[in-house]
C-alpha cells in the first residue's frame, strides 16, 4: 500500500470526534509547534518540505508564507480556500466531511506559523452539511483548549470560524474569495498588491487550499526533510486525486506524487481501468481548466516517456502536447464521449461563472459558448474553428484574474487535439446531430 498522509485514518470509526482523532495522534503538531517551535521554525519546515499549493496553481507554500507582511504590525489572517468548484474536483469535500479535525489542526498550526490570531475557512455555500461538521470539530477544539485564548498555555491566541459562500465558482480565486468574505460580490482584485500585503480587510493575508493546510501537521510532526523524500523532484509529498468520468472505480485517491498515469488509471489500487467494454479516449487531468489530452498523450509524453502524476511530467511538452496537474480533478472519457459537446459544456460553465468585470472574459466566454453551441447543434460555419481559436487567444492573459485563461485553454486544447471532430460537426451536421453520435476515426495530434 502506498503511503497515506492525509487519509491514513479517514476510515477509522469516530475519527470525526476529537477524542478518536487524538487517539490516532491528532493535534500533536499543535503541541509541538506552540510549545517547542517559533513561528518562523514552522515556516522553515514547510519551506524544506517542498509542499506546493494543492488548489491548482502549485505555488510553493513555504515561500508564499514567507511573503506575508509581518513588519507593518497589522493583524494577519489565514483564510482556507474550501470553495472547491473546479469541475472534476471533489477532494476537499471528502477530506472535510470525513476528517474535519485534520483541517482544523492544520489551520491552527499554520495560523501559528503566520502569526494570525483570526482565521477563516471559506467553504462553498452548497456544502452547508460540511460546514456543520466543521463547526462541530471547531467547537470541540475550543473546548479542548486548542483554540481560543492562550492555546495550551503558550500565550498564543487564535479564533477560527467557518464562512459559507453563496454559489459562485469565481470565489475560488483568492482575491474574489477575500471580497466575498468581506460581504461583497466575488469580483477579483487587481494584483499587486498581493494578499500577503493587502488581503482581507486590507491586512496581510494568506489564502491556502484545504489539502495544502491539511498536509502541514504531518510536516511539523515528521519534519520537512522527511516530507521532501516523498514524491519525485519538485513534486514532493502526496496528492489527493478525485477521479471521475468513465472509470471502473471513481473516487478520491491519495497518491504519492510520481505514480505513472497508466498505473493510476488501470491498476486495481486506483481507478481499475475504464468502464467495462469501453476504452480510454481522452483525459482532463487537473480540473476542467487544464488542457484536455487524447489517450496516447496522457499515457506517454510526446517523447515516448511514461507520463507520471507530477507537476512536471504532466506539463511536459507545454500546451502543445502536455497539460497540468492542477487541482487533481481527473476526468476520464471513453470513446462514447463527444469532445465538441463536452467543450461546449465547459464553455457554458465559464460563461456562466465569469464575474463580468473584464470585457474580454465577459464577452469572450459568452461568444465561445454561442459558437460552440451552434457547432454542436449542426449550425456551425467553416470559419468557426478559427474564430474560436482567435477569441480564446484574445481572452488569454487579458483579464484581471485567471478565469479568462481557464476558459480559453480547454477550448484551444480541444481544437488542437480533436480538430477533426469539430470539422465533422460543421461539415456533416446531419450525422453529427443524431442522438449519441460521436466522431469515431483515429484522432490526429
Amino acid at each position, binding site marked *: 500500500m502506498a503511503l497515506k498522509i492525509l487519509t491514513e485514518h479517514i476510515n477509522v470509526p469516530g475519527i470525526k470526534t476529537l477524542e478518536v482523532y487524538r487517539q490516532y495522534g491528532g493535534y500533536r503538531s499543535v503541541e509541538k509547534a506552540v510549545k517547542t517551535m517559533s513561528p518562523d521554525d514552522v515556516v522553515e519546515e514547510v519551506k524544506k518540505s517542498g509542499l506546493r499549493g494543492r488548489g491548482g496553481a502549485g505555488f510553493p507554500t513555504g515561500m508564499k508564507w514567507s511573503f506575508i507582511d509581518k513588519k507593518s504590525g497589522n*493583524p494577519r489572517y489565514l483564510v482556507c480556500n474550501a470553495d*472547491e*468548484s*473546479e*469541475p*472534476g*474536483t*471533489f477532494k*476537499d*469535500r471528502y477530506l472535510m*466531511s470525513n476528517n474535519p479535525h485534520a483541517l482544523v489542526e492544520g489551520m491552527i498550526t499554520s495560523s501559528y506559523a503566520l502569526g494570525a490570531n*483570526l482565521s477563516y475557512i471559506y467553504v*462553498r*455555500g*452548497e*456544502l*452547508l*452539511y460540511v*460546514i*456543520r*461538521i466543521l463547526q462541530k470539530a471547531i467547537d470541540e477544539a475550543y473546548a479542548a483548549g486548542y483554540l481560543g485564548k492562550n492555546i495550551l498555555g503558550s500565550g498564543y491566541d487564535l*479564533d477560527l*470560524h467557518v*464562512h*459559507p*459562500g*453563496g*454559489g*459562485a*465558482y469565481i470565489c475560488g480565486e483568492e482575491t474574489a474569495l477575500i471580497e*466575498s*468574505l*468581506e*460581504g*461583497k*460580490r*466575488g469580483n477579483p482584485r487587481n494584483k499587486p498588491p498581493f494578499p500577503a500585503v493587502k488581503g482581507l*480587510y486590507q491586512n496581510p493575508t494568506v489564502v491556502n487550499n484545504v489539502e495544502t493546510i491539511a498536509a502541514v501537521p504531518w510536516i511539523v510532526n515528521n519534519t520537512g526533510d522527511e516530507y521532501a523524500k516523498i514524491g519525485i523532484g519538485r513534486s514532493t509529498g502526496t496528492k489527493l486525486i*478525485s*477521479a*471521475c*468520468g*468513465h472509470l471502473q472505480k*471513481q*473516487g*478520491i485517491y491519495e497518491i504519492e506524487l510520481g505514480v505513472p498515469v497508466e498505473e493510476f488509471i488501470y491498476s486495481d489500487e486506483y481507478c481499475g481501468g475504464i468502464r467495462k467494454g469501453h476504452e480510454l479516449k481522452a483525459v*482532463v487531468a487537473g480540473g*476542467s481548466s487544464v488542457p484536455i489530452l487524447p489517450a496516447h498523450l496522457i499515457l506517454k509524453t510526446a517523447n515516448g516517456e511514461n507520463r507520471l502524476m507530477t507537476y512536471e511530467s504532466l506539463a511536459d511538452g507545454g500546451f502543445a502536447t502536455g497539460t497540468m496537474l492542477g487541482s487533481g*480533478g481527473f*476526468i476520464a*472519457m471513453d470513446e462514447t*464521449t463527444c469532445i465538441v*459537446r*463536452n467543450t461546449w*459544456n*465547459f464553455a457554458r*460553465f465559464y460563461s*456562466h*461563472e465569469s*464575474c463580468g468585470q473584464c470585457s474580454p472574459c465577459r464577452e469572450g466566454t459568452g461568444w465561445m459558448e454561442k459558437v460552440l453551441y451552434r457547432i454542436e447543434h449542426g449550425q456551425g460555419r467553416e470559419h468557426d474553428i478559427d474564430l474560436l481559436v482567435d477569441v480564446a487567444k484574445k481572452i488569454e492573459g487579458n483579464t484581471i484574474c485567471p478565469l479568462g485563461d481557464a476558459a480559453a485553454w480547454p477550448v484551444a486544447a480541444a481544437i488542437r487535439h480533436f480538430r477533426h471532430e469539430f470539422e465533422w460537426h460543421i461539415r456533416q451536421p446531419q450525422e453529427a446531430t443524431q442522438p449519441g453520435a460521436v466522431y469515431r476515426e483515429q484522432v490526429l495530434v
Partner: protein
Amino acid sequence: MSGYHHTTTTENLPTEHLNPVFTSENMAEVQVILKRYPEGKQKSAVLPILHIAQKQWGWLSSPVMDYVATMMDILPIEVYEVATFYTMFHTNPVGNYVLEVCRTGPCCLLGAEQVIDRIKERYNIHEGETSADGMFTIKPVECLAACGFAPVMQIREQYFEHLSVENIDALLDQLAATDPKTIGYVGNMPVDVK
C-alpha cells in the same frame, strides 16, 4: 414561470414576506454569526445571514432583503447586489423543493442531461420554472464538487447522488409524498439514490 420580478413592489407577496422578522431561533444564530467578524466588519456576515433568511422564507423577496439590510445597518443595494450575484439565492418565488441538478461536464458524461430532461418532461416545465402543483422547481446548476458520484442533485442542504433516468421518478414520487419541511434542512449527509 412565476410572474414576480425583482422590484420593490409588495403586490402579490405571501403575507410572511410583509414586515418580515427573524424567528427568535434564527435571530440567535444571526447574533452568533455577527460576532465572528472584527469590529466594524459586520458586512462580512451578509452571506451567512442570507442563507438563514432563505431558510426561513424560502426565497429572498425585496422586503426580506430590505429587512436584512436594516438589521445589518447596510444599504439595501449592498444586499441586492450580493443576493443576485450568488446562484444559491432565489430572488423569485420557488416551489417547495428546488431541484438543483448539476449540468456540468463530468455529470453529463454519466447522464445528467437525461435526468434534467426527464424532470422537465415529467412536470412539463422549462429550466427555472415550477411544477403546476407548486411542488418542484427545476434549476440546473454548475458542478457541486461531487463529480465522482454523478449525476448529482442538491435540495437545500442535502445531496442526492447517482441519479439516473431509471431512479429519478421514484425519488420524485417519494419527495412529493414527504413533508417538504423535513427534507434537506438540517445538514443531512448525502444520499446514494442507486
